């Protein structure tokens, strides 16, 4: 069927459309997958979207070297296998990788610290794209700078590929506390905060008025169990990304389903108890202290 609407009345890629897409993901689980079979498992388990990768973060960490955008052929195979949205990652600042993914037609681009950064000065100017972006953040300033550049969705950075939730919790709490501290501030005081956290005043003001980030905020980086996912939801996340946590576990199908149900019923301990039973081994995980500072992915970007 051909669209018969007058073209001048059609608007693509507006902020409303990009942020609206992110809103449709709320209360959902976005799962990292490396091939079509995994993507189908994720979709059947009830994932709201998949993140198409060549390697999950745990393997990127293990492999070392420069991590880049996945082969578009690989992403295309995943796009063909599922009907839910497909996201893919580009290196921080790599606007050409982003152009390629937009041309491919991925539904959302993750400008991600999991890959090796490509630009030492700038993140991608996301406003130039029709496809929405999600970006990682550790604190309010970082989140608002990304939104200013056009991000339609924020996620905590956490520490990807560790199966250790502590950094995601840290980043969510730091962001929540900063938002809470904006309450009751005068405009002059907010202006000062904006300077301190290096974020635009208008976005600081909007955040204060809303009492939350102006875009959807997911948790990511180290979530491995239904309890981890529900904890992030109780801390105020709008949804969760699960990277290595599913397909590095003993029973990915069961775990994926359990995490989806845990996110839908994040504040119901009875449901959480039920879904947490008999899931097999979770991914092994890494103690954050054992990772040298310069190898921590969350330190990438600014």
């Amino acid at each position, binding site marked *: 069927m051909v669209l018969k609407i007058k073209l001048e009345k059609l608007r693509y890629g507006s902020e409303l*459309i990009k942020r609206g897409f992110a809103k449709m993901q709320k209360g959902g689980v976005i799962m990292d997958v490396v091939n079509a079979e995994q993507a189908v498992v994720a979709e059947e388990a009830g*994932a*709201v979207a998949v993140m198409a990768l060549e390697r999950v973060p745990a393997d990127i960490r293990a492999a070392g070297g420069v991590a880049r955008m996945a082969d578009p052929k690989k992403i295309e195979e995943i796009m063909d296998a599922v009907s839910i949205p497909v996201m893919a990652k580009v290196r921080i600042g790599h606007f050409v990788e982003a152009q390629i993914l937009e041309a491919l037609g991925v539904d959302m681009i993750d400008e991600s610290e999991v890959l090796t950064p490509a630009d030492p000065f700038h993140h991608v100017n996301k406003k130039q794209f029709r496809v929405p972006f999600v970006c990682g953040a550790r604190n309010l300033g970082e989140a608002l700078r990304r939104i200013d550049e056009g991000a339609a969705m924020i996620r905590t950075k956490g520490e990807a590929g560790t199966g250790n939730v502590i950094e995601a919790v840290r980043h969510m709490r730091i962001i929540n506390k900063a938002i809470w501290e904006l309450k009751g501030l005068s405009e002059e005081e907010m202006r000062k905060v904006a300077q301190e956290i290096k974020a635009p005043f208008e976005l600081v003001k909007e955040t204060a008025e809303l009492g939350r980030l102006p875009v959807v905020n997911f948790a990511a980086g180290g979530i491995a169990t239904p309890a981890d996912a529900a904890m992030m939801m109780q801390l105020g996340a709008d949804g969760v990304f699960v990277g290595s946590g599913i397909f590095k576990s003993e029973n990915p199908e069961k775990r994926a389903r359990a995490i989806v149900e845990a996110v839908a*019923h994040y504040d119901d301990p009875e449901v959480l108890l039920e879904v947490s039973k008999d899931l097999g081994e979770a991914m092994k995980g890494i103690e954050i202290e054992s990772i040298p500072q310069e190898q921590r992915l969350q330190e990438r970007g600014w």
Partner: protein
Amino acid sequence: MKVGVVGLQGDVEEHVQQLRRAAEELGITVKVVWIRERDEMKDMWGVVIPGGESTTISRLIDKFGLREEIIRIREEGGVIMGTCAGTIILAVEGDESVVEKGVSLLKMVNIKVDRNAFGRQRESFEAPVHLDLPPTGAFKGWRGEFPGVFIRAPRITDVGEGVDVVGDLNGEPVMVKQGNVLALTFHPELTDDTLIHKYFLTLLP
């Protein structure tokens, strides 16, 4: 009067807020709740199925036993509204992708839908739609343009018996009504306009 938004996944909060604003503008007292358990659906007369992912929402509706309650509320004269993914779930028939992915349909509206028929997110768009809402008891009827927000939207490819087209995009159906069930392929909850949510509330018994 109590109404609820199926709150398992999707843009639930946006519908809840829009319904509260609409009730305030109408000057009526309506309790609006997030539905996550079937117990919350007692004495409920209106249900909204939000936008989100239809595979996820339909799976969770079945898993947590909301399906029978939605059917009961409709049969007892309540009002049901679906937007985007919600419309797919309300339809009697879906395209191959809907069938293949095992989306379990509520079959409340005699339409056929084609999921993500406009394409991927890149092809999502805003465009004014034309509404022609028929009068109901408390509602005088309304005709005019409404801001249409289409996000990976489904397309209504066939309209069967008993279904009235009450909204169109250049002649193509984007909002339909069958009895007390409304199905929309766009997202009125993402706009500042409460018209459609007010219409939903005026249909309540």
